[in-house]
């Protein structure tokens, strides 16, 4: 039997089709493999900072005697610029029942709208239900950016 070694046009076509199919699908699989890998290696736009440091804003965002809420990890935090030009940063989670506190320019103090709790700008609980002070943070300014950090334990 010598039939199979002589390629008929149908066989030739089928083989070419198969080669094309295989070739292109190999290329497709390689692309679908390399594309994710190469994209992965490109660093994302959002820089991951250490879990202890967050950029809270830029110098000039706040007017004196105002405060703003920003995100620290998954919890709200409060950044205040007092009249004497110093920045203060504390957690904005009230130590009473976890409402979000705010800065009251008329009182020069931090206030919780839920049950009238009051704190100083550094988080000391001074009136109302809060049993403990607000967690305080350190503020550092670098190249016009305001960084808020967890207090170092040393």
């Amino acid at each position: 039997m010598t039939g199979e070694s002589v390629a008929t046009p149908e066989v030739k076509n089928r083989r070419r089709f198969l080669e094309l199919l295989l070739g292109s699908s190999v290329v497709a699989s390689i692309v679908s493999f390399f594309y994710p890998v190469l994209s992965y290696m490109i660093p994302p736009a959002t820089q991951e900072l250490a879990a202890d440091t967050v950029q809270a804003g830029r110098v000039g965002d706040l007017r004196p005697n105002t405060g703003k809420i920003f995100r620290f990890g998954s919890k709200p935090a409060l950044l205040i610029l007092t009249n004497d030009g110093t920045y203060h940063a504390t957690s904005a989670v009230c130590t009473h029942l976890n409402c979000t506190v705010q800065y009251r320019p008329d009182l020069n103090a931090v206030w919780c709208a839920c049950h009238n709790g009051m704190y100083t700008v550094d988080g000391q609980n001074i009136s109302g239900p809060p049993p403990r002070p607000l967690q305080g943070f350190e503020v550092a300014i670098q190249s016009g950016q305001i960084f808020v950090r967890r207090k170092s334990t040393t």
Partner: protein
Amino acid sequence: MLMRRKERAANLHSVIARLIVFCGILLFPALSVSGQTKNSCLDCHAKLDAPLGVTPEEYQGSIHAQKGITCVGCHGGDATKDDMLESMDVKAGFRGHLERSRIPSLCGKCHADAAYMRGYDPSLRTDQFSQYQTSVHGKLLAKGDTHVAVCADCHGAHGIHAPNDPRSSVYPTNVAQTCARCHADEAYMKLYKIPTTQSADYKASVHHQALADGDLSAPTCSTCHGSHGAAPPGVDSIQHVCSTCHLFQSQLFDSGPHKDVFAAMGLPGCITCHSNHGILAPTDAMIGTDKSAVCAKCHSEGEPAYATAAAVHRELVSLDNAIKRSDEILQRAGDAGIEVGEAQLALADGRDDLTKARVAIHSVQAAAVDQDIQAGLKVAQSTYQTGVQAMAELRFRREGLVVSLAAIGLVIFGLAFLIREIESKQKSDKEIMK
């Protein structure tokens, strides 16, 4: 020898001066036994058993001893004499065992004298005795009842500590225990027909828990009843007392219909719903038409108030559930790897709204509660949408994978066919070789 008379006198003066100083140095230890001035009372009474015994630790730990006020300050007598007849001589001012009815005025002799107290601690109050005279204890004592509490019953007699000393029986965390000594004693209180459940009730309350958790400003017996002027607040003044801390609730209550109704009915303000001693953490179940709800205590079916109570309860529960639903979906998305931190933060606002709604309840007006509830529902809804989008992103990833799976599938088929081709060629080549 060549010294003149003047010089010799000067020499003598300096020698005598030096001698005096030298003797002084020798005698100094003996003279400066400060705080170790003779206390013959303690010398004997330390060796006696109760009720005449006073241990040195008890006495020396007390604030009076630290300030130099000894036994004779209250009991009179002469503490320098060892002989009993001399030290406990009436002529020396000895008062002996102090009658209960005379204790307040005795303590007041110093503690109500502002000029005198200024010499020890200018910031101390000096109105304790006058306050005591307005109290239930003071009034009954004046009538001759010696069962009631006098100064020594709460503060101790010999081992008195300053109230801000944790060892003191009137330190904030110890006050309830001190009051309970009499007020939880059924046999003792039978005389006055006062219940004795207050101590047990208070121990179960949120206020006690807050105090135990370290918040020294949390209320204890004396916070609401007064300490020296102790008396139960009248029905009219209960709201004033509670509102010193719970201001918002009080203001809302004033703005609502309950204020006048409660006053007209003689109901005791806040404690009508919250109780006085056993104040528990409030729950959403307190509002509504259920048996356990406080509204049902007065309102029955058919009344408009009944419908309001039911509606408010429904709204609270709906917001609570909406928040829980958002939280759950955001958790799931976050766990699967989608960034949902912003939405979780926004959800905190929704929780704030629920907290505020629970305060707004005190106005007993559905509209006030509704305002907070609607705000909260909006937040819950938008965060839920974010969660839904996050899950959709997950699905999108899966769909993307299907594309590459399709490519892989094609490769597998291609390989299978290639193998078939090659092997049939190999077989036919082998046949040719044969």
